[in-house]
Each structure stands twice: as C-alpha cells, then as structure tokens.
C-alpha cells in the first residue's frame, strides 16, 4: 500500500529549493521513488516508519500464513479436540507447540489468527477498492459535468451519509444474503460482505474526488486539453484522475482501517464471515462466548491483532494526510 503511494507521488516543492531551474538529469523510476519530498518526509517521521513496519509485518505474516503458520486450522487431520482450550505456553497447562494456546475446537490460536488476519485484510482491501472505484468514478463525473448529474449523485451520497455505516452494511449484507439461494450463502458470504462494506464506503470517496475535481478542472492544463479538442472522457482519464488521486489515497488508507473494523464488526455480530473460514471478527465472537469461563486467550489475541493492525494503518494514513496536504499541518 505505502509503496504504491510513494510511486504515485514524487512531485513536490523542489521548485522553490531549485532556484532558476538548474538542470536536473532525467531521472529513472527508482531514483524518483526514493528522492522526493514524500519519501523525505517518510524517512523523517519515526511514527510513519514504525507504522509502515508494523503494517508490513502484519501483511507479510498473514499473506504468508500457509507457509509460516505452525498448523493449518482448516485441515481436520491437524486438529484434535483433545487439545482444545489449552492456554498459552507461559500459562500453567500450556503446551510448547501451541504458542498462544488453542480454541474450543483445538485449533492453534497463532495459526488461526494468521489465517483469520489474511481474510480480514483481503476483505478490507477488496471492500475499499470497490468503494474507491465507485466513489472516484461518481465523484469525478459529478465534479466535471456538474449540473443535474452532480445534484443527483451528491444528494444520494448525502442521504446515504445520514445512515450510520454499520447499520447500512448490515442492511445490504442481509438483503444480499437473502437474495442468494440457500446452498450458495456460505460460499458467497465473503463477497456479500465485501459488497456491503464497499457500498457503504463510496460517498466519502465521491465527496473528496468531486471537490478535487472542481479545483483541478479550473486549472489551465485542463483548459489546454480542451483547447486541443480532446474528448471529455480522455480529459478525465488522462488529466483529471491522476491529479485528484492524492487525497483519495489518503482516505483509502484510513478507509482500509475502517473497512477491516467494519468486517470485524459484521462478523462479530454473526452477520459476516461464517465460522468455518474465520476472520478476526469471527474469532473474537467465538472467543467471547468463552471469556467468562476463563478462556481469555481465545478472544484477547485476535482482538489485540486487530487493534495493532488497525492502529498501524491509521497512523500511516495520518502521516500520509500530513505529507500530501502540507496546508493541513
């Protein structure tokens, strides 16, 4: 995530520090990636670096789960009910092969969290992408064409924003499930969740994109493109979209954290991912039932994983907002 942002954004205030346009050699992709104001700000912000590091570790660990997790929680041959409800190693009764203990079905907690985190991150990413594509598209159309199109799109967004996000997601999720034939519900649950969260997310993106589009389309480079006679879709794709992506990427990062939480909330409420392929939210819900019988580790570790992940992504988003919008500082 963060690397793609850096690649996107190399432009900066080098004009002011580079008086009278002394000649700069044409630079390759890599040198532009490293030597720019955004990267500079990144390497001078310990919070951003730590956040990026944690995010990277989380993403790598979960994506590589099939290779690094000690057990495969979905392989019945590796699960033994006899090993159920074991505490973490450092607690009395813990066993060395189950580092963070086991859950009620005897699955290794560490492995389950890694697999569950993978699902959470993937669902979050997919949902944000859906919301972003939808929102950016509608926002850019709204901002560039204006008039009735703008009014309709933005009023729909306004109305949607009056409904609390999680309520709406539950609603869309519920409707989506009901529409599916019974035998497909389990298999398609993940896609329904992605769809529900993505649809809840788009007004944020649409609003920001519309604002940026209004600013950009007044600029002279867009007018120059119009004077050349380029068709509107080409102006939007080539000239406006790349220039409105900065703020969009900022909300996308913060939106990713929110989407992961939304997914966890849906799953926690039993509305999201089924327990057979657990995500972090599902794990927390399952563990919650055992919390009062003293099996705290089943819910605490997935919850801690969720908090760390969301916190790191949020920090990254905050830094990015500061770095990309110096005026906000």
């Amino acid at each position, binding site marked *: 995530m963060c690397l793609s942002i850096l690649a996107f954004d190399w*432009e*900066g205030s*080098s004009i002011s520090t580079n*008086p*009278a346009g002394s*000649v700069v050699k044409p630079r390759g992709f890599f040198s532009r990636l490293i030597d720019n104001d955004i990267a500079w700000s990144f390497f001078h912000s310990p919070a951003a670096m730590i956040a990026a590091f944690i995010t990277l570790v989380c993403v790598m660990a979960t994506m590589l789960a099939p290779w690094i997790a000690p057990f495969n929680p979905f392989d019945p041959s590796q699960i033994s009910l006899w090993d159920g409800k074991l505490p973490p190693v450092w607690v009395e009764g813990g066993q060395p092969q189950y580092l963070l203990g086991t859950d009620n079905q005897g699955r290794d907690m560490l492995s389950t969290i890694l697999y569950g985190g993978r699902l959470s991150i993937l669902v979050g990413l997919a949902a944000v992408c859906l919301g972003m594509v939808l929102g950016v598209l509608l926002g850019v159309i709204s901002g560039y064409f204006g008039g009735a199109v703008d009014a309709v799109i933005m009023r729909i967004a306004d109305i949607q924003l009056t409904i609390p996000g999680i309520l709406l997601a539950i609603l869309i999720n519920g409707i989506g499930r009901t529409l599916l034939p019974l035998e497909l519900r389990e298999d398609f649950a993940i896609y329904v969740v992605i769809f529900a969260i993505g649809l809840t997310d788009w007004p944020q993106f649409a609003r920001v994109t519309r604002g940026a589009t209004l600013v950009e389309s007044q600029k*002279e*480079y867009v*007018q120059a493109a119009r004077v050349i006679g*380029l068709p509107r879709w080409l102006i939007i794709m080539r000239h406006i979209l790349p220039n409105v992506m900065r703020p969009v990427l900022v909300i996308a990062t913060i939106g990713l954290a929110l989407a992961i939480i939304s997914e966890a909330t849906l799953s926690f409420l039993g509305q999201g991912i089924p327990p057979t392929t657990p995500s972090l939210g599902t794990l927390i819900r399952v563990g919650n039932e055992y919390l009062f019988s003293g099996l705290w580790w089943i819910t605490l570790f997935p919850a801690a994983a969720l908090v760390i992940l969301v916190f790191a992504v949020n920090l990254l988003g905050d830094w990015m907002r500061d770095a990309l919008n110096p005026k906000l500082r």
Partner: protein
Amino acid sequence: MATDQALLEIHNLSVQFPTRRGVVEAARAINLQVQPGEVLGLVGESGAGKSTIGNAIIDLLEHPGRVTEGSILFQGEELRGLDDDAMRKVRGDRIGMIFQDPQTSLNPLLRIGEQLIETIRKSLPVSDKEAHSRAVDLLEAVGIDQAEVRLKSYPHQFSGGMRQRVVIALALAGEPDLIIADEPTTALDVSIQAQILDLIRHLCKTRNLGVIIVTHDIGVIANIADRVAVMYRGEVVETGPVAQIVGAPQHDYTISLIAAVPPADRKLERFNSVDYIDGDNLDHSARRIDVGTHWLGEQSHSKSPDGAAVSVENLKLSFVLERALFKRNRKMLQAVDDVTFSIADGETFGLVGESGSGKSTVARLIVGLYKPQAGRIRVMGQEVELHKQDEQSLLARRALQMIFQDPYSSLNGRLKVLDIVAEPIRFFKMAGSEKQVRSIVKDLLDHVGLGAAAAMRYPHEFSGGQRQRISIARALASRPRILICDEPTSALDVSIQAQILNLLKDLQQELGLTMLFISHDLPVIRQMCDRVAVMRNGAICEIAQTELLFNAPSHEYTRHLLDLMPRMDLLDRHYQ
C-alpha cells in the same frame, strides 16, 4: 530620535533556509540603510531574497528560515535576539507592514473601524473616543472620503484599491517610524497602482517616515523610490540613487535587468538579450529549422476567403453573479459586450485592458472554452465548436491554439514533457509512427530553446520561463495557424519575459502565425502588436494601429491608460 543616525541599519545580514536539498542562503551579507523620510526600493526578480529581508527585519521569517549572521539596528536598537513580546511591540508600534494582497490582509468579519481602533488602542495609550477620532483622521489621510461613515463598512464593501488604502491606514495606526511594503501594488490595476504609490510617497514625505518598498517592478521603483538596492541571488549587487540605478546602472546584472524592461516610448525590433542569467544554463539559442521542408512548416489549412484569420462579430456574454428564481432578481455581469473585430492573416492583434475588462473572456470565447450568448466567431472562415469530433471541427480546432498565463498550472504535472507536447500530435494523428512523434517533439523542444533532453523530464523540474517554453511547444505541436496568448508573460520575471517575447516574435515570423496577444502591460503590447484594441468593462473602446494608438490615442480611456504607464524617463517628476 537622533537625526544624524540612520533609521534602520542592516549590517552583514545573512538568512538561511535549511531544506532537504541542503541549506539555501536566501540572503548573504546584506548591508542597507534607511533614513527618515526616505523611500528605499528593494528590487529583484523572484527568488532574489528581497521579501526575505523585509521579513527578517520584523522577525517574521517563514519556517524554517533563520538569521544566521549580522545585525539589524533600528533607531540604534538591535532587533536581532529580541524576544517575542518585545518584537510584537516593535512590529505594530514602530514598524508598520503593508502586504501584497489587500484581500487577505484585512479581517473580513470585522468592520474596518473596529480593526483600526483595535490597532490604535493596542499601540497607543489613548481612550476609545480618541482612538475613534484618530481612525477618522487616518482614513482621511489615506484619501478615503466620508471617513466617519466608512468606518462602519466591512472590507468587502471596498474596492481593491480602497482596501489597500485601509491596509496602509492600519500600518500607520501605531504611528510607526518605518513602513515595510512588500509588493504593495502588484495585485492592483495600473490606475490604482499610481494612486497608491503617490499616497505612500506623500505619507513618507509629510510624516518623515522611512519606507522600504519591496518589488519586482522597475517601473514602480522608478516612480516612488529615492534610493534603490538591486538584489540578485540573495545579494545586494548595487545600491544608489534611483536616477543613477535606472539611468546609468553599473553592475552587469542591473544593466541587463534595466535593458530587459520593455520601453514604453518606442518600438524595438527585438528585446535586448539578457546575458546575466547564469542559472538558466540551458542553451536558449533556439535552433533554426528549415520551415520549407520541416514538418512544422507543412500547411494543412487553406486561407480563408476574406483574408481574416479570426473574425468576431457582436460577441456577447454575461455571467450570473447572483442566482435567483426570477430573472429580474438575478445579478448579471456583462463580461463581453458587443465585441467586434477581425484579425488579418499573419497579423499580431493586441487586446489590452485592466483586470475585469473582459479581455481573457474574449480569448476563451474564441477558443471555445465559453459559449457566446450572441454573436459569431469564425476561425479561418469557419465556425468552431468545442468537443465536436467531426472532421471539419477538428481541422478548425487544430488551427487554433492557446498559450496560458500561469506556467505553473498550465502543464499537467503527472505527464512527462514528451507526453504533454505529443498530446495534440497523437490526438490528431499527425505523425505516422511513435518514433516520428518523438522526433517531432524533440525538434519542437529544440525549437523553443529547451533542448531535446527536456522530453523525458517532468514539468516540476523546470523554472517558470522554461515551463512557458514547454507550453509554447505544445501549442505549436498541432501546427496551428493562429496562436492566442493570454498574458503569456505576466507571471514571469522581466528578464525571462524578454526571452519569451523574443521567442514568440521569432516563431511568428518564421511560421507566419496569426497572433491574438492579450496583456495588461502597455509597453509589452507596443513591442508585440501590429494593431491594438483597448477594452473596458467588456466593450472595445478603440481599435487602432499600435503606433497610432500610442502616439495619438483617440479615446479618452486610452489616453488615461497611457498616462498611467510607469515611465522611466520621467524620473525627475518627484524632485521638483
């Protein structure tokens, strides 16, 4: 105050800005003096460090700048190292500031009376009533009528020039001994500029104030300053009485700077070349190409039957200022009011006027960015419509290109220069292969004096003048017959302006282009144009041959504009 002592003495002042590309020395070993009752002009091009000095005096340097060396003695007192509280007292009470933009230097939510009285009470030990009468006096002093009534007005109820007068009144409120004016007239029209400069000079003389005027405009300096310090790259290269600096400059940089100012009183063949721009080390001697055989010279447009490249008849456009349900309640602005002119093939036609006169709107109407409410526009004998993709319209579009005012916003920062310049070529499919596109772009960049290597870089790596060259290359890429230049040099420094204008002149002669040249700057218009139209409030006052217009203007408004032109040959006007 001792009279034999200078009001402000700056010794060996250096200011540094640490950045990620190393420390930038914004000012180096500056020595300046200001006497009471004297106007010191601080002149230089952008980035010369002139504003930095003004800000350093009052300790308002932008983060992360800092004064690293030297001393600032104000009335014999060292200002460097004063703490924030002491500095704040110096700022309002003893040193007044006038900033560039009167829009932003007044609080829009407070009546100007409140702002004035608050400032007076903060710095002088007077009662409310006394402060009120002082405020009235101040407004009268800066030339605002009915001061008593005007105190109750909000800033938005004043025009730009009036607002700048209020800002000056605010600067005077604490009865300062020194006023620092940073580009005080840059945001204003010429007619208002002259009034404001006269006012500042008058106040300086009657109240025995020291004034530092920071500006990039030699004309302003020539009209107001007693002494001038010329800055270049953070250093003062020359100091002296204004008549000497403008009339007989000593330093090479000053000589080329003065030479680059377009003269108002005669027409030059070419602008004097400015040799002292050592930072701009690209080779600007544009490579000549043989137009007869080169791609650029190929003609795809037939001449229009009546010989007019562009003709505009009874053009009208109004903007809605305030929306309302009923027509009679709407407030409209007649931006373009019954404008008619035609530009002959190969001619340079000038459009001159103050801001808000509708000259840019006319340009945007011609290229199709706005739709006229009435009237006809014909380009090469054909009516043009934007976004129409049929062959006729595309051909007409190609013949017409525009160069914009602001080189920083007229190029898409996400595209390489190659892609920016190639856009029209690719879109109109004017080249057989991608290889040919590249070679054409490189030729074009060479031709505007940038060098082919520029193609693979991004716009932000170039300075303002270089960006404007890229803009010109893009405009030429569709092989237009008509070039519309909307204030192409008003965002540029005067030395760069001379280069760009020379380039435009050369291109026009070589390629036989027709040009519509829009500017608020009369001397520039005189150098560039064959015929000129003067616009005011959306209507054309006068169209005449350039020399005729400048020597024998027939319309009253034209005469008025010509009178206001800053003239460097009238230096002794203030010394009578």
